[in-house]
């Protein structure tokens, strides 16, 4: 059988093209990489808050390491989720914190189950500053005083922003009162407010006895003289003792790490029953579109592993009063899911 030269050449080139195409297809599936401009949306609209600050520290280094153009956009939770939903190519990533699943647990509209709807990326840092404060001239010296007072039938009002990180400490406190003083927990009343400014104002006005705040936003207020209407006092930091211990010795402002440790467990007890204490570390992590290629997930994991190995990012985070906390995607997802289950219990206990 004789085949013409032309036919042979045709078949040959078709085969070559098919082989090349197949090879490149396999290569693409294995090595999908980020390319072009990368937008990192965050779940907060504030550029002065901890989410923006954290995202900036990480994204700047990631962009440099990968040689890509990356930009952080403070679009807020609802817009960020929607933007992420639209882009599976890996050109939109999201950074947010525990609010992303707490919002869902508290039933806030616009918050879905992130573990079902998105791919969880690596954790990057902890903000150990979540705090509860009272006015400096408050009769409550410690959190124990507050628990006792509520247990004795006194109404204590706590200013929080509902539906997330700001509320979880309040829920835990209410749960602890329900355990220690059954039936009295309703004397702990949530005053739903918005921004930190609103919470502070509630304290100045005497409309709240306790407020949720943070070491970063309220530390200067704790150093004002007692006769100043604005003066406050920390009574509780929700972070784990081990987390605060990792902060720089000088702490923040003029409040040292040693002083901050006075307000965390075991000095402050908020029981969850069965000898377990409630703690809450506000953790920041990446979220990806579920359809995004695994190659990109791995690429970011590897890049961040290299950045954290190099070590200078930790210094920047610690200087900004954040605790470095890198865990690759898979570990992060497992860990955060377990964390959510723990808090789910508290929330269902008090409802």
């Amino acid at each position, binding site marked *: 059988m004789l085949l013409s030269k032309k036919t042979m050449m045709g078949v040959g080139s078709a085969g070559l093209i098919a082989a090349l195409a197949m090879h490149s297809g396999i290569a693409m599936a294995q090595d999908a990489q980020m390319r072009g401009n990368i937008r990192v*949306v965050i779940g907060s*609209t*504030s*550029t*002065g*808050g*901890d989410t*923006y*600050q954290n995202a*900036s520290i990480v994204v*700047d280094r990631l962009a440099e390491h990968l040689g890509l153009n990356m*930009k*952080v*956009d*403070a*679009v*807020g939770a*609802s*817009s960020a989720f*929607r*933007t992420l939903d639209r882009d599976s190519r890996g050109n939109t990533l999201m950074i947010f914190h525990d609010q992303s699943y707490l919002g869902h647990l508290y039933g*806030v*509209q*616009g918050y879905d189950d992130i573990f079902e709807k998105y791919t969880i990326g690596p954790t990057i840092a902890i903000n150990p500053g979540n705090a509860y404060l009272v006015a400096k001239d408050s009769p409550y010296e410690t959190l124990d005083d507050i628990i006792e007072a509520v247990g004795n039938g006194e109404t204590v009002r706590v200013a929080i*922003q*509902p*539906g*997330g990180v700001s509320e979880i400490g309040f829920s835990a406190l209410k749960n602890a009162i329900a355990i220690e003083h059954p039936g009295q927990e309703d004397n702990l009343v949530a*005053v*739903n*407010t*918005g*921004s*930190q*400014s*609103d919470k*502070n*104002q*509630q304290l*100045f*006005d005497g*409309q709240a006895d306790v407020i949720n705040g943070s070491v*970063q*936003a*309220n*530390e*200067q*207020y704790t*150093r*004002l003289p007692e006769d*100043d*209407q*604005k003066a406050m006092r920390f009574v509780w930091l929700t972070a784990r003792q081990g987390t605060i211990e990792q902060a720089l010795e000088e702490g*923040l*402002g003029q409040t040292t790490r040693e002083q901050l440790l006075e307000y965390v467990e075991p000095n402050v007890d908020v029981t969850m029953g069965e000898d377990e204490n409630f703690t809450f570390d506000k953790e920041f992590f990446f979220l990806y579109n579920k359809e995004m290629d695994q190659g990109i997930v791995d690429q970011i994991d590897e890049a961040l592993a290299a950045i954290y190995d190099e070590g200078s990012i930790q210094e920047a985070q610690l*200087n*900004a*009063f954040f605790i470095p906390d890198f865990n690759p995607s898979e570990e992060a997802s497992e860990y955060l899911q377990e964390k959510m289950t723990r808090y789910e219990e508290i929330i269902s206990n008090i409802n």
Partner: protein
Amino acid sequence: MEFLSVLDFTFFLLVGFGTLVGIIFGAIPGMTATMAVAVCLPLTYALGLNHGLALLLGLYVGGISGGMVPAVLLNIPGTPSSITTTFDGYPMARKGEGEKALRICVIASVIGGLISAAVLFLFAPLLADFSIKFSYVEKFLIILLALSVIASLSNSMLIGIFSGVIGVWLSLIGDYSISDGGNGHTRLMFDFMEPYLFEGFSLLPVLIGIFGISTILLEAEKGVKRDVAGQRIKIGKEGGFSLSIFKGSLTNLTRSSFIGTFVGMLPGVGGSAASVLAYTQEKNLARNSSQMGKGAPQGLIASESANNALTGGALIPLLSLGIPGDATTAVLIGAFTLQGIQVGPLFIPENHETWYVMMTALVLANFVMFFLMFFAIKYIAKVVMVPKHILYPIIVMMCVVGAYAINYGIMFDVWTLLIFGVLGYLIQKIGLEIAPLIIGFILGSQAEVYFVKSLESFGTYSVFFTKSPIAMVLWGLIAASVVFAIIMGIRSRARQKMELSQASGPHTVSGKHHGSNND
């Protein structure tokens, strides 16, 4: 005076550059001072705190001032706080007095900016202590006072109030945000609208749609004809500007500057309330305010001195409480946190150098703004000489780009622009009024939050009257504003009647009052 060593050539260059870029941002419809600061925020990493602040404060002052340009020349408020500038600025531009109007605005702006900077420098901690006396109740009453001006801004009080109520209603569409302490649930919409309207309509696309696009639609309706506006424009000496315009306006200038500073220092009250309040106080208190809304310099002076005074005012709570006074300072605070510097009640005593650097940059930015704009106005004012068939498509394009960019690329914001452009056109066709509607839209959601929060905190309606002496004073002002509006309404009706009876010939009889151009 250690801080003097920081003031190098780069510092001055950055203030100048920031102010120039800010003016350009402010002058482009849809771009704002807030956006300018947000875009340049990451640069502060590289520049360091002092140089970074020089740039950002330049952008802030420039951005707020730049808003006057499209407000006067095109009837599009470049920034939300320049709405009231359109009321008198655009009628003047239509009379060919755009350059004169802009010069008045620039002088009022620089005086407002400098007065507020002085107040910030001398009294910041003291005023911060005063500002915390304003709880939800007092803030609600301030918003109510600003809303009460709807009555006196309207040609017909009833139509004005009705338009204002529609504005408030539109502002309530969306969720009652948990970041305001609400329940996070959406209302006033169908389920299918949720993906688009979860956070309600964005302010800026609404603003440029209802002012800009509707103006263009109205002009387009007239068709393309030989444009005479260019020939009527009065440039240079012919422009009729002289400092004597400010004669007798000292009270207006000072009062408006202080109103701007004061509103600026109340977190959460918002910049637009400042110029609205200053404008109406002038309308209520001036000996002769009959020309306001028809192209009166006093309206421009009130509006622009107040909105530039916001800059110093909004920095008061930022630097004395760690709480931003407006949207732009909320972004500005990022410059501090990115550098690891806490802002709070001890910021000024603990960071003397940065404090002096900021004051220098703020004052300098005001002067740079003045020189850049005062001498460039001659050329800027010629924008109106561009034939409309070329100018309007460019404006529409800028509006679309601005609307798309304002929330970092949301296409629905462009639809909002179109919806409100058409709505603005229809509103004017059926005789409703745009100014009260937009004021209702801007202030409505804040009024709701503060009203609900007041009730939640105090549990009784009587608290609105009895909360504090400040609340009582505010009620006095609200009552005065309403009474004044009624008297003005009665007088204007009497005047109309008189004019009608004096008029000869049937062609002058018209049931509608089209006198003012505050659309």
